[in-house]
Every structure is written in structure tokens, then in C-alpha cells.
């Protein structure tokens, strides 16, 4: 898995990420290779699901796009403007176009502020461009996320459940009318019935406001439900990307197959996960040469150690970074 390569990029995308590299200082002057040459794009109105296990770099990628982590190399282009070049006021201004929803909804809200003030924070910072964001508009947004009711705005976050707090976070992001919404494990901390409410809500909001979303999750079933396209990541690289139903029906990368086979109680036509993946996740400080998945892959050959696979088309809009992909039935 290598995941370098850009064959899968499209023309005229809203957000383009090119060769993104994010490295952190590790212990004893080592370097943690969190994200290593990831490229992808997002079209307007599209939901891209990013899936992978801990250490795959999915959260770091999202935070780097938000400019919450500094990219070591690469470019993040939103509507033709490279965000990595921006500093100071220009950067703050560009950030308005992107918003992020985090995993822990309770921790995402300042406990000492009222909901009304939290939701209209963006307007307080940037002003109200066309005067349309009156108090009515805040109520309307709260209503859109399912928190109608007169006194919601006056209350403080601790008076709400986890699911309701996540709705408040979504409202806060929507007020900014973002071009891209990045959601980092937004339903992982919620109970299954509440999780379903939030997933349905996101789908409704996407249809209503034409949201463009990057949905990061470790949960393959959740990602399948919400996404138009899915990108599978492993140890800082892209393994595979395809339209959702195509990827779940015909996973071509050995790691994608292992992930799907690991889901308890699935009905997919796959061998047991124990035959598809072995060993432990290598350290991101010293990742394997060539394909990073080769140390755990049953199909690995000498070529995988010597040569990094490049993303290549195996089907319609279906790209895989693997020297030995599983044949895709179309």
C-alpha cells in the first residue's frame, strides 16, 4: 500500500489534497510518519468516507486540512487557493469555509457559555454579511438540527445529552455556511439509537443545504451508510478508493478485505479475517519499505518490499494501491 499516485483525482473538485505529508517529532529525535503522501479530492455535495484503524492517519489528515496540524509537505487547495501558504489573518479568513465536528460532543462545547452564544460565535467573529443572520436565523438553524423550542438557546451544554450536544456542534458549523464539513468520528461516542438519529440528520442536512462532507470513522457500517465514496487508509497511506457500494461489494485491496472480514456477524463473501491479516501494526516511526501493508499481507511478494504501489484504476472510478489486487467483478 502505498497510496501515492493521483490517477484518481478529478477536475474541478471543491477541495483537492495533493501529496499531503504530516510528520511529528517522535521520541529521541525520531520522526513519526503520520500521513505520507496522501492525495484525494472532494466534489461539491459529495460525502467522502475515510476509514481505517487507529494510526492510519485519518484524523491527522482531517486536522491538517482544517489547518489544526501543520502539513510537513503537500498542498491543500480549496477553490483554487492553497491553504498551506496562508498565515495570520488570511488563514483565519480562509478557515471560515471549512468546519469540523469532533468525536466528543461534550468536550466540543465550552461549558461556561450559552448555546445561543456558542452557535452564533462564527457570526460574532465575522460579522453578519447580509444582515440575514438575525436571532431568527439562529433559531432556524437550531430547528434544522432538531433542537427546536424557545429556550434551547438560553441553556448551557451540560443540560443536554451527548446526541443533543452533537446537534449543537453541527448547528455551530452550519451557521458558517461551510463549503467543506469535516466530521471526525462524529457518532463514535453515541449510543446506537442516537447514532442513527445523527446519521439521518446529516443525510437530511446534506440534501437540504448541499453539504460537502469528509466523514472520518473506524466503523465500516456507519461509513457505508453515510458515504458516496469511500477511501481506505493504512499507516499514513491510501489503500483504495471507490464509490461506496462498489467498494463494499468488491474490495480489491487485501487490507480493505481484511477490514470488512473483521466485522462481526457480516454476510459478505470473504474468508475469515485471520486468513487476510496477521501480525501487528508496524510503528509509524519506522514504517515498512515499499507497500506499508506487506508485513501483514498474505499476498506479499518481494516486489511489495522493493517497490511502492501506486494508485491505479481497477474499475470504474475504483482505484487501488496494490501490486496484487484481488480481481474486481464489474
Amino acid at each position: 500500500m502505498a497510496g501515492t499516485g493521483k490517477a484518481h483525482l478529478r477536475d474541478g473538485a471543491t477541495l483537492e489534497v495533493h501529496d499531503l505529508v504530516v510528520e511529528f517529532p517522535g521520541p529521541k529525535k525520531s520522526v513519526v510518519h503520520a500521513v505520507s503522501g496522501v492525495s484525494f479530492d472532494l466534489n461539491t455535495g459529495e460525502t467522502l468516507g475515510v476509514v481505517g484503524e487507529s494510526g492510519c492517519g485519518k484524523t491527522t489528515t482531517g486536522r491538517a486540512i482544517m489547518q489544526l496540524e501543520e502539513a510537513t509537505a503537500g498542498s491543500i487547495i480549496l477553490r483554487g487557493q492553497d491553504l498551506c501558504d496562508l498565515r495570520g489573518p488570511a488563514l483565519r479568513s480562509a478557515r471560515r469555509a471549512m468546519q469540523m465536528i469532533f468525536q466528543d460532543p461534550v468536550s466540543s462545547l465550552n461549558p461556561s457559555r450559552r448555546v445561543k452564544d456558542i452557535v452564533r460565535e462564527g457570526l460574532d467573529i465575522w460579522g453578519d454579511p447580509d444582515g440575514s443572520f438575525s436571532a431568527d436565523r439562529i433559531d432556524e438553524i437550531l430547528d434544522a438540527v432538531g433542537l427546536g423550542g424557545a429556550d434551547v438557546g438560553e441553556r448551557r451544554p451540560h443540560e443536554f445529552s451527548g446526541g443533543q450536544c452533537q446537534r449543537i456542534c453541527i448547528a455551530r458549523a452550519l451557521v458558517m455556511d461551510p463549503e467543506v464539513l469535516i466530521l471526525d468520528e462524529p457518532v463514535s461516542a453515541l449510543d446506537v439509537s442516537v447514532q442513527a438519529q445523527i446519521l439521518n440528520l446529516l443525510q437530511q442536512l446534506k440534501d437540504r443545504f448541499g453539504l460537502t462532507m469528509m466523514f472520518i470513522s473506524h466503523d465500516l457500517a456507519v461509513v457505508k451508510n453515510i458515504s458516496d465514496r469511500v477511501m481506505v487508509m493504512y499507516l499514513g497511506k491510501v489503500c483504495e478508493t471507490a464509490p461506496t457500494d462498489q467498494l463494499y461489494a468488491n474490495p480489491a485491496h487485501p487490507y480493505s478485505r481484511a477490514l470488512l472480514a473483521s466485522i462481526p456477524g457480516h454476510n459478505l463473501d470473504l474468508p475469515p479475517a485471520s486468513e487476510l491479516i496477521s501480525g501487528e501494526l508496524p510503528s509509524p516511526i519506522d514504517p515498512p519499505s515499499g507497500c506499508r501493508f506487506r508485513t501483514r499481507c498474505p499476498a506479499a511478494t518481494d516486489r511489495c518490499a522493493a517497490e511502492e504501489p501506486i494508485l491505479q484504476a481497477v474499475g470504474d472510478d475504483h482505484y487501488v494501491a496494490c501490486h496484487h489486487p484481488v480481481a474486481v467483478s464489474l
Partner: protein
Amino acid sequence: MRKRLGLLFWVSAVYIGVLVFLALFRDLLPIRDPDALGIRTGDCRQFQDPGWNSYFGCDNLGRDLFSQVVHGVRPALFLGFTVTIVSGTVGTLLGVLAGFLRGVFDRVVTTIIDISLAFPAIVLLIAVRASFGNGIVVFIVLFSVLGIPGYARIVRGASLSLSEREFVDAAAAMGATNWRIVRRELLPNVFLPVLSFAFIGFAVVILAEGGLAFIGLSLDQITWGKLINDGRVEIRDHPHLALIPSTVMFGTVLAFNLVGDGLRSLVAPREVATARRLIAEGSHQPGEEGAVVHVRNLRTVLHTPGGTVEPVDDVSFSVAPGESLGIVGESGSGKTMILRSIVGAFPLADVTRGGTVEVAGVDMLRSPDATIRRTLGTEIGMISQNPLTALNPVRRIGDQIIEPMLVHGTRSKQEARDRALELLEQVGIPAPEQRLREYPHQLSGGMRQRATIAIALANEPQLLLADEPTTALDVTVQDQILRLLDGLRADRGMALVLVTHDLAVVKGFTDSVAIVYAGQVVEYGPTAEIFANPQHRYTVALIRSMPNLDLPSHSELATIEGAPPSLIDPPTGCRFADRCPAVQQKCRDESPVRSGTDAHSYSCWFPMSAQPVEVS
């Protein structure tokens, strides 16, 4: 609010209020001139004892001690107040900026703090006092400078952890300036801890003045410290001269400390250490032959300071050797409390358990402690959600596996060591010889969970209790751990009870399942049967709300409106009634009786298989 702060807080607050009044209006009060010499005016004798003539007595020149003490209030409060404001403001700003900006600024601030805390303050005081005299401004500047590091330190710590919170990231993503983030997101959240610290700092300033007066370094006006120091000379014959100002100062310091503590308890509520008692009610009903764990009509009541909670209400199940039971529910449903009720481990509270819990033939509620401990140690293995906290970080893996065998004397030391090696191999840990000598932090999350499983298996228990064993793990690791547990169950004929919120885990790895809602088992039966043919409306809603790989993407999921009822005062009738799409009046009036068969039972007045009811 009033109740939480307690009586002492309010008494202290009133005391401080009286002091503030005296400080502000002392010149309007009908009290004598504190400097008037009573022996000359005839108002007071030398060393007169306290009485109606002069409440606190008089000193060697007949000066009225009461008015002197009252006059000492103003310098004490003025000094405390100004010093607290100055050092609190400067310290808070330095601390919040150090915690938020980090980097060079933080290193400079922390270095200054470290140096100033190591600096002998008394030397500085003497030096400054010698050079600049004893005006009150000198004391204010001096005490303020000395007070800053304390504030800076607590605010820096609080800001560091606040800066990690997502709402700070969210504000940055919103395009907020650093100053705005500090002002809006950080400062309001450090205000209460700073305020609580300020009251304690206030008391320290008052004490410090007293201490300085003792070595002859005080203000150029009447202060409590001076009064105490003067009275000290006559302590043998006229103790009231030193004792009364001391008592007033002591009371003041105590009052400020109590108010500070009270405010701190609002930030971090102190744990109320209730005595923990386990009480068993009712009588034991022996289980059927062959079940490893047999639970019948289990009812658990927690008596907490906040009220009486009943997280387990009439729960029954049994698990035979080699079988697995899934206990499924959402957070707060009481599923974990069922496991805790089996082993008798609860958070601090008095607990009453009623009904029957039998493990390997032992009554776990009413047997002697030694019997219960032996059963826990030898017949039950426990696996918890977070393998990192389940393992002792400073002990080697090998020692932790050997421990239960030595404690219960099931094996000699050498046998235990051999067995530990064998166990690590069985749970799939590579290079077991080496792992035995390693510490938990040297293992990955999956390997740690394997190690806790090895510990649980050490004494070959008949029953394995697993509480969300894979929730903290990645999906490929989860698959490995669940397969491992499943294999151990099959090979060793253990009974496995798996508590989880994840229906997919239950579907893939259990023989039977108990669906828990608001402390009750609402449906119980074979797993395959329940997924194919769920009867309780909650079970149906739960299954339909689960994102499913068999559904195409963008399928709308079923949701359950509303929230589960509080377990402190649960509603009468069916506890799911308020959220149920098929609710009838009967559901709200009467608790549903258990129906269905012994194999598949459910508590619902209108289960899925019933005739469609007319909506009333």
C-alpha cells in the same frame, strides 16, 4: 446551590461580610478612639479585663482593645484585597498565555515560576523593608510579586488541559483570534478555580502580615499582627491581649479558607466517602443442575448521596458450560451493573441485592466472605473494557498472571510460572518468554487485552465475565479477541457472559442474548431467534437503528425518539412506553408481565407477534 456549599460556607461568608462592613464604616461606628489612653481619660484601667465597659479589655496604657481590633480590620482586608487582585490578575494572565501559547513563552514563565518558588521570600522581605520603609504600598507590591507564581501555576495547568479540548479547536476553526480564544474559551473556565484559590491566597496574606509583625516588620498603623505581638509580652498575666486578636485573625483566615474550599467543591465535587456495605435480601433459590451461573430475580439497589437508584430490576438468566450469553443495552441501561452484582463490586455506596446469584453452586450473596472470595478468585475470570487500566503499570506481565494462582494457592511458584508461559501462548501472544518480563506499556492494545485474558484464565475459571472487552480496540483486533474468547469458551467448556452495546458483536459471538432497558431485561432468548424474530418493541427498534452492511448506502435508519427514563424514579408501567411507537394506555398503567416461552421470553403487552392492535 446553598445545600451543596454547606452551613460552614455560609457562616464564613457572613463573618467575612461583617468584617467588610467594619472595614468600610469603622469611622461611623460608636467606638472609642483606639489611640485614646484610657489611664489618662479614666475610661479604662491598665490591663483591664474584658467586660461591659470594654468588650475586649484594655492594654498597658488603657487603650481599648475592641476598637484597636476593629481598626485592624481595614489594613488586613485592604492588604489582602489589593494583593489578591494584583497577583491574581497578573498570575492568571501569565498562566493562561503560557498554557495556551506554549513554546518559548511557556518555558520562560515556568522558569520564572520555578526560580521564584525556590527564592527565600523572608530574605527579600527584610531587604525590601529595610530599603523602602514600612508604608502599605511596599507591602502590597512585595506580597503581590510573591503571590503571582501560585496563580500562574494553577492557571497554566488548567489552560493546558482546556487547550486540548475540542471546543478550543472549534473556535480556531471558526477563525477566532488567539486573544478571542483566551478571552471567550479559556478565561471563563478558569475563573472559578482562580476565585477559590484567591480566597485561600487572601488568608495567606493576612497570616503573612501577622508573621512579619512577630519579627517586628509591620505596617505603620494598627494591625492584628502588631496587637498580637504587643500582647505577647503580657501573655502570662493578661492573656486576653494576645488571645483576642489571635482568635479574630484565626477566625478570619479560617473563614476565607472555608469559602475558598466551598468554591472549589463547585469545580471538582469532593467524593463523599460513604461507608460501603453490601446487604443481601430475600432468600437463595438453588439453580437448576448444570448451569455455571444462575441469576434469578436479581434486584440491586444503590443508596447514593443523590438518592436511591435501582439499576438492576428483577433480572434472571442462566448460562451452561460452553455457552455464551450477550447482555446488550445502551449507556445507563444497567448492563454493567448486572456484572457488578454478580461479583459484588460497586462504586462507593451502600448496596442492597435481592434474589439469587449462584456461581458454580455457591450463593454469591449470602455465603461467608471467604467462600465468596475463593469463588471469585478461582471460578470467575473478569475482563474489562480498558486493558491499560486493568493492568498494573509498574508490575511485569508475568507477575500479574502468577499472582492469582499464588493468592489462591492453586499452584506452587514454579508451576505458576510454567502455567503463565502456557497461558500467554494460548492467548496468542508471540515470544511469551520475553513478554513475561515486560511491562504493560510495552504491549500494544490488543496484546494487553490478551494479557488480561491470560490473567482471567489463570485459575481455570468456569465463568468468564467480559465487560465491553473489545470496545477500545480496532476492528481487526476486535475480531481476533472475540475469536480468541470464543475458542476458549468452546475448548474449555467455560460459560461466557459478554456485556456490550454492540449488536453486531452479539450477533456474531453469542448463543443467547438478554436485551436490557432501564434496568430490566426486556427480552431474552437464543441469539439467532431474537435477531430473526424480535418481539419487544425496543429490541426491534435497536436492531433497525444499527447501521447494517446488508443495507445499501444512504438507507434511512430507524431511530428511537426521546431518552431512557431516570432510574432514580422510574415510571410505572412499561419503562419503554414513552418512546414506543405502539404504546397503548395499558402500557402506561401496568408493568408488562413476562410472556413467550422459557426459551424466548419478553416483557411487552403488545409484542410483534400479537394481533395488530387498534390505535385508540
